[in-house]
């Protein structure tokens, strides 16, 4: 080819070099407009002095950050966010994985069971959270009504007597809506495992748990890793559940970083500080996700 058409070659190779970029250009441009520019703007806002009407008044240096870090609320909110993320991610991963193991067995109605598992995931979070709020409501809640009609309780029980109780319910709701995602990621991993491994292990006399820890887990690990990283990011940034159920009340005891910054921006009119909180959250996520990815992928290679 090359020898027969020496003149065409450079033109071809140029076109070939350019072509992929043309193909990816639309997505790159879209990402630049909808992701990179807004992020850049948030960084810009976080070091700017912004009036309550939203006008940028000038450079503020790190003043927004020092105000945020100096406020008594911030450490409380950060603690909540860490508890929220760890509890939801860890518990939903464990429960989702167990559910995936169950659904990987052959039984009658497996397809229906799998479809049902998707429901919580396929429903809008706001609707999910509203439903949970309704379930645990003291006066009209479905839970109280159910327990009363079953004769288990005599009078309405206040299921959320303390902020901690409220937060626990929010975590429960978070776990409930996150399980399907973990379950399906794990399930896809499980289905790709060759059954001959298990046959060989059974012949060698391995118990169920030996098989689970020595065959299943190592082979499902890559898909679980991806699910966990995505979950950390997603749960950390989750807004609708907390906002719908408590709005962070009382006194920020159930606030996470995202609801806190929303209130800062739109209830207190402190957009500069809100942007600073956003940047702090971004950096935390960046570090967590990178560390997790690097360490687990390294182990995977060994």
């Amino acid at each position: 080819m090359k020898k027969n058409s020496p003149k065409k070659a450079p033109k071809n190779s140029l076109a070939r070099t350019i072509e992929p970029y043309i193909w990816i250009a639309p997505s790159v441009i879209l990402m630049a407009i909808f992701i990179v520019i807004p992020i850049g703007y948030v960084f810009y806002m976080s070091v700017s002095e912004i009036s309550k009407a939203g006008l940028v008044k000038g450079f503020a240096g790190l003043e927004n950050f020092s105000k945020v870090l100096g406020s008594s609320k911030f450490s409380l909110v950060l603690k909540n966010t860490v508890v929220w993320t760890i509890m939801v991610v860890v518990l939903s991963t464990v429960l989702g994985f167990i559910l995936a193991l169950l659904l990987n067995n052959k039984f009658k109605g497996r397809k229906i069971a799998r479809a049902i598992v998707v429901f919580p995931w396929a429903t809008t979070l706001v609707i999910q959270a509203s439903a949970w709020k309704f379930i645990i409501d003291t006066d009209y809640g479905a839970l109280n009504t159910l327990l009363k009609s079953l004769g288990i309780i005599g009078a309405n029980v206040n299921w959320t007597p303390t902020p901690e109780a409220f937060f626990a319910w929010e975590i429960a709701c978070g776990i409930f809506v996150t399980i399907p995602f973990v379950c399906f990621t794990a399930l896809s991993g499980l289905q790709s495992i060759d059954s001959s491994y298990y046959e060989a292990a059974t012949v060698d006399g391995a118990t169920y748990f030996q098989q689970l820890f020595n065959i299943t887990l190592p082979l499902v690990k890559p898909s679980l890793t991806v699910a966990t990283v995505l979950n950390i990011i997603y749960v950390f940034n989750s807004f609708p559940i907390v906002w719908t159920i408590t709005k962070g009340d009382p006194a920020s005891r159930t606030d996470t970083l995202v609801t806190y910054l929303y209130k800062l921006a739109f209830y207190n009119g402190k957009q500069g500080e809100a942007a600073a909180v956003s940047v702090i959250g971004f950096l935390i996520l960046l570090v967590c996700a990178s560390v997790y990815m690097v360490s687990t992928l390294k182990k995977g290679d060994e």
Partner: protein
Amino acid sequence: MKKLIALLLALVMVLGLVACGSGNETPATDAPVSDAGNETPATDAPAASGEKVEVTMIAAQYGTQTADWWANFVSEFNAANENINLVVDVVSWNDIYTVVNTRIANGEAPDLLNIDVFADYQADGLLLPASEWVSEETYAKFYPAFLEQSVVDDVVWAVPDLASARALYYNVDILNEVGVEVPTTWDELTDVCQKIYDYYGGEVYPWGVDMTTDEGQACFAYYIWNNGGDFTDAEGNWTLNSAENVEAIEYIIGLVNAGLTNSDPANETRYDNQDMFGAGKVAMMIGPNSIPTYCSVGGYDVNYAVASIPVNGDNASVSAGVMDRIMCFDNGYTDEELAAVTAVVDAFYDDEPYSEWVLMEDFLPATSAGGEAMAAANPESAAWIEIVGSAKFYPTAKAEWADVKQGVIDVLQQALLGEDVQTLLDDLQAEIAG
């Protein structure tokens, strides 16, 4: 290499999600500009070419009928004023602050804005004084007490478009059943609440309270105002930790702790309380004049009556007023453009459309003519017009109000969790007044 690509992908996802999360507070780039969209910015009004003068307006959506009312007003106005093209965007309360801030940040502020707050825009030097764009004839119609609520540096910056006021609503049947009179003082209130509680064994909440992020500041105001306290003194200095305020907040927190209110005031909004009131689960609550409509729309059949908000001792009962406003942004108008703005405002406050406007969504009028029209249409509303005339308003003209509002809600919620009211208010006062 794989590792690197995976890492990169993960980073991109982080970026993407952060961008989603942060989109909220970047109004300049990705928030929708307006519901109605694609109208030309005010500054492009082709006044010079001798064509139509465009007046743009953003109006808050009060209820289901607001958009229709404005559409009707606009078509009638544009038909009657051939040289003016009025464009009104009706925006929901959820979005309106973001929309307005976006427009301001992009240099596309509307000419007229109908919203609740004005001080933040005034502080940035974005508004024109009312005297420049409201005709004397229209100006004379407003209740003077209302205009005073929009004064900064002795200048009126906005005019009221409507108001609402609060009073005590009580379930007549429950009070009769228990055999108690309507409470007028806090002592009576505690007593009546206890009797209702005992009679129903806790199945009925005697008193509805809302200390949520939604409207906790209203709760704060009801009790401090009816204990002779206030947010500020006569000179406008913050007095958040006055002895009256501390006593008032300790009273209402005590009522909650005694179990005489709805179970979770930090998370149950006024609407939750209104629902429970409608269903006969809450016996008494302080609420706005729109509760009758709320109950009838919600299908509640409750036998209620209205009374003054209970006071401590012999203080005069104070109602809490809420007022929304119309303001004009300083977009560098020519005389012709300013005349067009004035024409729109005059047409809005013209007695007939304005009476319709006020009656439409169950609000109280801000002009004397509107008040007369309303009293004529519904004799019961006369009492409300009197109430709103004597109501106190939040100090929304002060630049610190947003912080104070969130601050007092936080104080109430912390007090519910057992913190000391005096300390909390001292801290808030120190934070606000510096």
